[in-house]
């Protein structure tokens, strides 16, 4: 049985842990085994990489070393962490001078990057378990209209993410449709949520988010399904500000893919901490009769 090293990441682990709770419960049902490791920040591919690429490489490579030392692949719950860990592997495996430089630094803390393990986004692991997921659905989400937002870093850059079509992503939609829910198409499905630029220029992040949400609202979504904590936060916490600044009502609840699957596998909203979401899920819970 494959056992993965769980990489929950800073945002899920230390800010929105209810997503980790739903994920662990779904993994347990699917017999996906994980164990912990004392990983540091991945670090952030839109933050630390922009700050200092070498520091990003060194910290990322050290995290890879921890998994290598146990000879186990990593399963990541976050687009950013997956993007960093796969991106670091890509740079080190394709640029021998970078690898030498980083291994020189790692040797000073008694470690060496070898490149022997793989980093998997949890969506890709779930995709390979479609049949098992289907068999575990006890509460069909019939009639629920879901807009899927896989986020940028799940599939871009395709050169090192190697997960899905970079501009017409399908994996998230396919997994969501296993629940019997109605996956709706909308304009700008591959568009960014605006999270990264939001940190430096709030007004531009908000305009990108608005473009996305306007299209989702127009398509008639009851809920938005995501697989990235940064996107989750952007959608869940910024809708109220959009309403304030643009005098337009959104109020579209967000579900992480593993939360949606947990509900479809018969778990209760309380069990997975849905009450911790900012945008209330009452409309969804009512529609599903939960």
């Amino acid at each position, binding site marked *: 049985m494959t056992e993965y090293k769980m990489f*929950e990441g*800073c*945002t899920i*682990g*230390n*800010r929105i*842990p*209810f997503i*980790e*709770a739903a994920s*662990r419960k779904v993994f347990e049902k699917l017999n996906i085994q994980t164990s*912990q*490791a*004392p*990983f*540091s*920040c991945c*670090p*952030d591919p*839109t*933050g*630390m*990489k*922009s*700050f*200092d*690429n070498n*520091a990003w490489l*060194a*910290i990322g490579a*050290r995290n890879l070393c921890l998994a290598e030392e146990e000879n186990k692949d990593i399963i990541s719950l976050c687009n950013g962490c997956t993007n960093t860990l796969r991106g670091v592997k890509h*740079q080190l495996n*394709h640029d021998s001078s970078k690898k030498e430089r980083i291994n020189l*630094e*790692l040797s*000073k*803390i008694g470690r060496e990057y070898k490149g022997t393990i793989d980093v998997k986004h949890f969506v890709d692991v779930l995709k390979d378990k479609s049949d098992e997921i289907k068999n575990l659905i006890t509460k069909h989400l019939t009639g629920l209209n879901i807009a899927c937002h896989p986020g*940028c*870093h799940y599939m*871009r*850059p*395709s050169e090192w993410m190697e997960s899905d079509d*970079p*501009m017409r992503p399908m994996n998230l939609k396919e997994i969501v449709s296993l629940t019997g829910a109605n996956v709706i198409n909308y304009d700008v499905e591959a*568009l*960014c949520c*605006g*999270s*990264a*630029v939001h*940190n*430096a*220029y709030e007004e*531009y*992040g908000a*305009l*990108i988010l608005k*473009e996305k949400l306007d299209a989702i609202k127009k398509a008639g979504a009851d809920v938005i399904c995501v697989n990235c904590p940064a996107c989750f936060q952007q959608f869940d916490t910024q809708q109220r500000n959009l309403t304030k600044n643009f005098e337009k009502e959104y109020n579209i609840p967000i579900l992480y893919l593993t939360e949606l699957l947990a509900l479809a596998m018969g778990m209760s909203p309380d069990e997975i*901490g849905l009450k*911790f979401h900012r945008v209330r899920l009452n409309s969804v819970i009512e529609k599903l009769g939960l």
Partner: protein
Amino acid sequence: MIDFEFRKQVMDYHMGSDIIKYCYQCSRCTDYCPVSKVTKDFYGTTGYDPRKNILNALLGYKEAIFNSDSLTIWGCTVCDTCDELCPQNIELTEIFTFLKNESIIKGEGPDFLYSQAKAIFDTAKAIPSQSAIERRRQQLDLPAVLSPNVDEIKTLLKNIGLDKKLKED
């Protein structure tokens, strides 16, 4: 003015240094950039413009990039859309990473990045653990997050010189 040293750094930065020379300014990057869309005026004379950044970078026009509004560099939201759509396979976002790293050295990056880097230097996490969240993890039956070895991270970062780029709070 052309800065040849800067031009060389840009060329060296791109994996496959030849590729960036073949940019023919088709503007697909800017046309599909979500930030350009919300910042450019009708004639495209203002706002974030990845096409212009690539042109200035490959020609070595350092001042045109660094002596203008900080949006020129920091408007990028790292969505990697331009990388996918570039017909010449230029990894634009990697070049923009280089420009951002240079801007940080000059102390001209956005504040949140200095705070994030400081948090990682001090605690090995971008978002340090808090007692309220630790309690919530217990309520949710989650195991405690294992503490990373902060000393190892500090040693790595000091040897790379990251501590010198940090700003005091």
